[in-house]
């Protein structure tokens, strides 16, 4: 009973309802909830949890497998660290974060398509509210409109799936859908894909991310980039694996969308002169890469990419927004050489950058390698070429920033301490500790990829049915 996975949703919700009236203890409730969630995560047995006493496909159930475990663990840990990092800001939004947590957990656990829609909406609305913390309401509005439109698409898709198959349970839905004629399953699949495209930041509809991510603060930046983005990625992975049947048309459209997201996102990031905007476009690009992996039937690589990106972005956004807040501006000129004053932050930032770019000895490298290897097995040799070429661009801008942030010197001269910017207070010791913990996690994961990959390997049974582009048609 106490070890039921349902606590992951019930507890945050309960805490959220309570926190509205118990405002003094809000923040404590949030932290305690997250810690309890971690406990639950380790105590809960894997398997199907029934809600309401009705077996699937009739009732709603929660599917807690290795895949969900990885996703949930990542999210609980990152969220915990982020709210500690951004404590003053998080205090104002505690109930929202709690509800969002419940939504995220529900989204990753649920085994019912319509319930998934509800959970996605919860998370989206929480995200709207959180994004108002940036203080740019037009961007929130933009995000809101797009996300709602895609939500309607998702809803329609869900309903059509129900109309054709008569069930809504996620696990094994693909089997039923694949047996439908193409003319029937095409439109619901398209609607489901577009229903997720906005949150996944795929290219034609990723315009919201530029400003929401690009003007983030210490709270929203890490939450959006390191919690929401991987969560939606994981959900998409689940969908690709269990629900969505790709026809050659939808498959290639999705693939092209993912590739262009990756390429255009990184190209746009390449030209930015604002640190947060750069990171925003980088997030867009990385999301495209992960989607590409899931589309091509390489969930493993997708998971690794998501984890790497989440960990790296939590550090990058944490440091970048902190530094931006302290120095007043995220432009290259202002932030030049700031890491001279903030060595630990700089080291964490550098580690995260190197991992993001996929440089060896860090997690990102193994993610990238498994991505490319997985694509080879689909026979699409040109896709790795695109990935690696874009990785050059990615490396280029990340390194440019890294060099600028570390070195206070002017071009053509040796650095001297006279040119350093005035030192400002960025983080308290506690916050620096959090960043350090994140960096240590990232670094350790890169050090022992084998151990880590073994753990991931257990996700394999659940992710057994690799679906390739166009396979839906053959059936």
């Amino acid at each position: 009973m106490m070890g039921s996975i349902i606590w992951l949703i019930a507890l945050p919700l309960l805490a959220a309802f309570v926190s509205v009236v118990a405002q003094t203890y809000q923040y404590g409730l949030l932290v305690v909830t997250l810690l309890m969630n971690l406990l639950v995560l380790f105590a809960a047995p894997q398997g199907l949890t029934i809600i309401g006493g009705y077996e699937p496909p009739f009732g709603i159930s929660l599917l807690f497998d290795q895949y969900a475990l990885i996703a949930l663990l990542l999210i609980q840990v990152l969220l915990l660290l982020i709210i500690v990092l951004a404590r003053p800001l998080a205090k104002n939004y505690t109930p929202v974060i709690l509800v969002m947590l419940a939504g995220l957990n529900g989204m990753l656990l649920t085994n019912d398509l319509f319930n998934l829609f509800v959970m996605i909406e919860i998370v989206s609305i929480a995200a709207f509210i959180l994004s108002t913390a940036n203080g740019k309401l037009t961007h929130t509005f933009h995000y809101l409109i797009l996300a709602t439109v895609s939500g309607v698409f998702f809803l329609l898709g869900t309903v059509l799936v129900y109309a054709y198959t008569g069930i809504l349970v996620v696990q094994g839905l693909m089997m039923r859908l694949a047996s439908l004629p193409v003319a029937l399953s095409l439109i619901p699949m398209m609607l489901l894909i577009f229903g997720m495209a906005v949150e996944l930041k795929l290219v034609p509809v990723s315009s919201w991310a530029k400003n929401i991510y690009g003007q983030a603060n210490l709270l929203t930046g890490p939450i959006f980039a390191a919690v929401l983005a991987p969560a939606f990625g994981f959900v998409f992975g689940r969908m690709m694996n269990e629900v969505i049947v790709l026809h050659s048309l939808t498959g290639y459209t999705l693939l092209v969308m993912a590739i262009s997201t990756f390429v255009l996102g990184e190209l746009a990031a390449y030209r930015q002169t604002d640190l947060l905007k750069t990171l925003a476009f980088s997030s867009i690009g990385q999301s495209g890469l992960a989607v590409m992996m899931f589309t091509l039937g390489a969930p493993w690589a997708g998971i690794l990419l998501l984890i790497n990106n989440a960990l790296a972005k939590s550090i990058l956004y944490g440091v970048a927004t902190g530094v931006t807040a302290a120095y007043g501006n995220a432009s290259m000129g202002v932030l030049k050489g700031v890491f001279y004053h903030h060595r630990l932050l700089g080291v964490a930032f550098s580690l995260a950058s190197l991992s993001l770019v996929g440089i060896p000895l860090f997690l990102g490298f193994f993610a990238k390698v498994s991505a490319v290897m997985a694509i080879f097995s689909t026979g699409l040799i040109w896709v790795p070429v695109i990935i690696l070429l874009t990785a050059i661009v990615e490396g280029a801008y990340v390194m440019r920033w890294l060099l600028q942030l570390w070195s206070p010197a002017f071009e053509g001269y040796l650095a001297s301490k006279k040119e350093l910017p005035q030192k400002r207070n960025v983080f308290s010791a506690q916050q620096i500790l959090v960043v350090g913990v994140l960096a240590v996690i990232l670094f350790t994961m890169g050090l022992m990829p084998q151990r880590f990959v073994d753990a991931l390997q257990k996700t394999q049974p659940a992710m057994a049915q690799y679906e390739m582009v166009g396979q839906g048609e053959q059936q």
Partner: protein
Amino acid sequence: MKKLVSLFLILVLAFFLTTALDQGLDFWHSPSQLDAFRMSNAFVQNDVLGEGGALVFGESKNLESGSANIVTSIVVDYRSFDTLGEITVLFLSALGVGLLMGSGVRTTLRSGFILKTAAKMVAPLMLLTGIYIFTHGHLTPGGGFPGGSMMATAFLLHYFGSDTVKSNLKPLKWIESTAGALYILLGLAGLFVAGSFLQNFLPTGTLGHLVSAGIIPLVYVLVGLKVGSEVSGIVADFSKTEVVS
């Protein structure tokens, strides 16, 4: 130009969408029976657990769900978890509105005589209707959401009609919070008593009786209260105005 292009696109989409959907939808052609493969059949028959049979209003007892209104069965029992999500959405948007409007002060809207008088007369009636709707949600059309909305309307009428209520919305928060928490606790009770979250652990009684369908009426009462308080809160927040300083 933009409008023309958009119109053109919409027309193209309309044409192809209807043809595409037309190809395969059975329901498009007015079926006389619910498709056999749909899981709703089991809901209608209360047959999910395999113990259903012919349901007779006022006679069938101890059904798995026990609500005469099948939609209510689904909303509050079979798919109660969705409803929990749903009220969470509402809760969230109330929170959001509250946060965004947090800087405003209470409205100084002056209520007229007609409003004041009418509110005094109509509001209690509406409140009563609302309560009726959600308590009978498992028997008749309606339920927590319409009932709650009606209660909210009644409250708002009262709110606009009276000057004393405007200054204190704290009880709304309490109702909202308590109702939500109780819903979850009810679900957890199901977990502890019957083994799964939100399980209908009370005896379901006879189909069609007021005291039947186990926790369904309880949940609907909670939902009604919560929705009522939240919707009231949202509208009340909307009427706040900016502090002019």
